[in-house]
Each structure stands twice: as structure tokens, then as C-alpha cells.
């Protein structure tokens, strides 16, 4: 088995049971994506050894660390892991240097060598001149990098990151994401990263695992998952309109009998997805090339980047993107009745 991490995480939670098979190869970055309460943090804590499994197993590097069937449980301090917590948890009474040196020192390295090693790591994350600072004197971005250096300093087989960029403001997040991508690429072990930001997942991860209600609902590389979502959650996350129906050639019948004309012929249960920017709105029924037109009522209007996202109700609920000028011109306000038009060529259809 070439997998460095081989796990099947089964944990009883109030409300649902987490049942998550998870593997990762050396150097691979796997992102766990999912709504709040899906069980992602539980999975991370189980991998770290902070939470025992109720079923399944955790194996890292061929070494079984948690196996409820045989009763084997290796505590966190004995596992080859490194964790970057959501709020970093840098030890307040130690300098950045001593924080990073903490792990190696626990493993028996002398203070001098550990500090030299730590200085090297801080240099790699670009914080060499902040080595003597205390955590409360560091900015959010700096603290995040120290936390990363601290986790990497123990040279873990498995690196775990819990929402590593969540606590940062948008500007810092951009820079830090780039840095993080570089360090994760250099890390020889496996990495499991929890995030709710699809951009983080797409930039940092090789593979995405979507978790909802404790179960894997979709798994694959970033490109596939984000263009062919299989759940509402992902669709909403990446900003796509997603529907499930029965295809017969290039016609798909959705729930409620509504028919969509699509581009790729398919047969059987399918997903249909299209971008909000693919939807055009008209004051009257248009007569043109779009195969799909239907009457709809505007429910809400919200800003989305430089444009406006219009939530529509009708035979199918959907979101449409228009420019502010167009919205003003057409007087698009909640309650207004419009006609929506969708080109079949703008749709993606794939088997469910």
C-alpha cells in the first residue's frame, strides 16, 4: 500500500454517526470540505488521537494507531502528527522560537539544537526577525505561520490543519494562502486540511472530500468537484445552480415535471449544473435561440462582486447574475415578474 494515511473514521456524534474512509499518499494534500456540524473537526481530532474511534481504524505509515476492535489506541503524543489549530494555540508564555522548538524538545532534542532547528523553520516561513517575540505581539498572519512552523518542526508523517486561514482578514488570507501552498507542496508527508472556503480547497488541495452529515458525498480533484458538484452544498459553495433529474437524450426532466434542454446527451439519473451568469432576464417572453425560457418572480437581490445576484422563484428556483445597470434598466426589484432564459450550451450534465 502506497498510502501514508489509511483511515476509516467511525465516531458516534449526537445526531449522526461519522463514517469517513480517508486515505492520503505522501506529499498529497486532501481537503475536507463540508457545512458546519458535518463532522470535519471530529475527523481531524480522531486522526490526531485527541478522540478515540468507536469503529474503523487509523493507520499511518503502516502503523496501526487506533483500532477499537483490538483495543489498540496510541495517544496523540506518540503519533507522528503535526496540528495547526484554528486559533493556533501558540503557548503564550513562550517566544515564537521556543514555541517552534517545543516539539523537538519533547522528543529529546537538546535545547540548543532544537532552537537552532526552530530558527531554521522560522526563517523558512519568513519570520526570522520575530523569533524573540511573544505570541501576543504577533499579527494574525504571523501567528499562523509560527503555528505552521511549529507543526512542521516535528517532521510529522501526517500534517493536520483546521481551517488554517479562517481567522485572517481577506488581505492577509491572500498572501498566506500562497505561502501555505508552497510549504504544503514541500512537505513530504501527507496533509489533511479542513476548510469551508472553496478557494482554499482549490488552491491548496490535490483532492477534495466533501463531507455532509458524517458521510462522504463527493470526492475527487478540485476541478471536477467544483465544475460537477453533486450536492447543493458544493453547488452553493462554488456558486452554481444545481438540479437533479432524469435525462433522455438532451432533455432532462427535473422534479415537478419541468423540462430543461441540455447540450450533452445522457440517459438515466443525472445532475444538471449551470452558472448564474448563464441566465438572462427579460421583461417579456423572449423569442430567440435559448431553448430554455420560463416565467419567474424575483425573490431577492444581493450584491455579488461587481454584479448583482438575483434569486428567482418559479418552476425551478435559481440564481441569476446581472449587471447593476441592467437591473436598473429593467427595474429588477423583489416581487417583479420576469422571464428567465438559459442557453442549453451553458449547461453541464453528468451522471448522478
Amino acid at each position, binding site marked *: 500500500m502506497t498510502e501514508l494515511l489509511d483511515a476509516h473514521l467511525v465516531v458516534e456524534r449526537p445526531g449522526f454517526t461519522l463514517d469517513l474512509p480517508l486515505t492520503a499518499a505522501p506529499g498529497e494534500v486532501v481537503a475536507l470540505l463540508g457545512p458546519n456540524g458535518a463532522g470535519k473537526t471530529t475527523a481531524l481530532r480522531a486522526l490526531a*488521537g485527541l478522540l478515540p474511534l468507536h469503529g474503523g481504524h487509523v493507520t499511518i505509515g503502516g502503523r496501526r494507531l487506533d483500532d477499537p476492535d483490538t483495543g489498540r489506541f496510541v495517544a*496523540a*503524543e506518540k503519533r507522528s502528527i503535526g*496540528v495547526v*489549530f484554528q486559533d493556533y*494555540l501558540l*503557548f*503564550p508564555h513562550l517566544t515564537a522560537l521556543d514555541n517552534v522548538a517545543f516539539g523537538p524538545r*519533547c522528543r529529546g532534542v537538546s535545547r540548543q539544537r532544537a532552537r537552532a532547528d526552530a530558527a531554521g523553520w522560522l526563517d523558512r516561513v519568513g519570520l526570522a526577525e520575530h523569533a524573540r517575540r511573544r505570541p501576543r505581539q504577533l499579527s494574525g498572519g504571523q501567528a499562523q505561520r509560527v503555528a505552521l512552523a511549529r507543526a512542521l518542526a*516535528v517532521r510529522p508523517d501526517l500534517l493536520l490543519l483546521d481551517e488554517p486561514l479562517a481567522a485572517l482578514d481577506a488581505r492577509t488570507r491572500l498572501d498566506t494562502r500562497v505561502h501555505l501552498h508552497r510549504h504544503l507542496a514541500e512537505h513530504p508527508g501527507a496533509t489533511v486540511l479542513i476548510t469551508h472556503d472553496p478557494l482554499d480547497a482549490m488552491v491548496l488541495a490535490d483532492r477534495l472530500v466533501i463531507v455532509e452529515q458524517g458521510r462522504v458525498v463527493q470526492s475527487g480533484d478540485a476541478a471536477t468537484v467544483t465544475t460537477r458538484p453533486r450536492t447543493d452544498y458544493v453547488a452553493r459553495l462554488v456558486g452554481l445552480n444545481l438540479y437533479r433529474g432524469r435525462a433522455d437524450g438532451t432533455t432532462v426532466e427535473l422534479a415537478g415535471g419541468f423540462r430543461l434542454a441540455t447540450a450533452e446527451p445522457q440517459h438515466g439519473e443525472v445532475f444538471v449544473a449551470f452558472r448564474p451568469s448563464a441566465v438572462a432576464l427579460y421583461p417579456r417572453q423572449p423569442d430567440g435561440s435559448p431553448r430554455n425560457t420560463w416565467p419567474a418572480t424575483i425573490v431577492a437581490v444581493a450584491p455579488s462582486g461587481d454584479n448583482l445576484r438575483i434569486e428567482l422563484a418559479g418552476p425551478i428556483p435559481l440564481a441569476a447574475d446581472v449587471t447593476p445597470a441592467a437591473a436598473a434598466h429593467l427595474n429588477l426589484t423583489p416581487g417583479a415578474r420576469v422571464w428567465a432564459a438559459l442557453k442549453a450550451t451553458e449547461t453541464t450534465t453528468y451522471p448522478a
Partner: protein
Amino acid sequence: MPPTSTKTAGAGPVAHLRRGRPRRGSARVPVVLAVPALLGLGFLVLPLAGLLIRTPWSSLPQRLTAPGVLEALRLSLVTATAATLLCLLLGVPLAWLLARTTFPGRRLVRALVTVPLVLPPVVGGVALLLVFGRRGLIGGWLDETFGITLPFTTTGVVLAEAFVAMPFLVIAVEGALRGADARYEEAAATLGAGRWTAFRRVTLPLVAPGIAAGAVLCWARALGEFGATITFAGNFPGRTQTMPLAVYLALEQDLEAAIVLSLVLLVVSVAILASLRDRWITTP
């Protein structure tokens, strides 16, 4: 608000603009709080002032150098410090047990730990005699096997003081531990620290101010202990006669001698307590 035209004597050109605006400064204390606070302060400080006023200043030098005085002071300071060290040694792990572990009967244990607080000290002394006395449960065995007796010894004084002062330490440290974030210990575990290493290198430094505050309370209580000491350890100059005992005995014979002894104890205690820096005993 338009400026009024009436002038008060000596008012400057802008004084009439200031009138009528409420002044809000950080020094302003509501009267409802200030009055009881001052009364409370007076209640605590006036008896001490009374001591100072009635001190026989003229005969102070020779009274201070009287044989028993320095001896009792030395004994008090030594035993209070030893008692505090004993409380730290036993109390910090106990506080950790109460704060960080769960076991059946934990609430009962916590209640028992605070019993010396409500027990009259003399009763504590009697209880200590029943256990550590010459015919006590443990004391008897100590006497037979090792020839060790605890009553009427300086060690006995340390034990009596530790008994009454330990609850202060345990409660303060337990509170500090509960307030400390247990997740730091988790972070330490993920970095490879076992429970003892995590306690030593992460938890202890984080709760050090709380421990220090508890130790100060403990020391102050031990210094002032009277009832348990005199009942368990008895009264003998140089060996078991601490300052509180000396004061009590002096009171029967010579009020002025008692005042001098009280003054000495007061000055030493205030000096030590006032020299403690705020940042040593408050969490950042």
C-alpha cells in the same frame, strides 16, 4: 446649550461654557459605591491605626530587643514559609486532581478540602492531636516505630499552620486551573508532550500567577494562626511560641508588650505583602 450670562466670582472667559455639562472623568466614583467603600476601608484600617497610636514609642527600642521578641518573629516567619512550601507541594497536585480529572465523589472531596476553612482552628488542633498526637491514629505508630513525635515540636507548628492554610491554596489553584485553557495541553500533546511534560512546561507556567496568589494567601493565613498551633504544638519559647502566641500571653501581663509584638508582626507582614508585584499574582 447656550452660554449663560451670569458670572461667578473669579470665573474665566470660558467658565460659563463649562457650567451645566457633566464632567466625566475616570476618577469619578459613584457615591453609592464610594461611601460603603470608605466605611469598609475605615473599618479595616482604624484598629491598625489604634495600634500605632497606643504604641509606647519611648520604650520601643528596649522592648524590641527583649529576648522573646526576635525569637518569636523568626519562628513565625520560618514556620509560615515552611507551611506554605508544604501546602504547595501537596496542594497543587490536589488542585490539579480536582480541576482536571473526574472521579466518583469529586464534589465530596472538594467539600472536605474546604472544611478547615469553617472549622474553628482550636477544633482543628484537637483533630490533629487525635491523629498525630502521641496516642493518635498515625502519631502513635510514628512514635512506636520511629520514635517521632509531632506535638510540641516546631514541625508540629508547621503541620498545624499547613492544616488551616491549605484550603486557601487549593481553592485558588483549582480556580486558576479551571480558568486555564485545557486546549493548550492538547496542543502540547500533538507536539509529543506526555501528560506530565505538558503539565510541567505548559500548564504550570500558565497558572503560575494563580499559584502565587494562592501561596500568598496561604502564607498570610499561616502566619496569623493561633488556635490550632497552641492546641497541637503547645507553647514554648523558641520552639513553638510563634508571634500570635507571644502576643496573647503578653496581653495577660503587659498590654504595652503585647502592642509592641503586634506592631512588629504587622510591620513585617505589610512589608512583605506590599513588596509583591501585581504582575506576579495576576494573570496577564
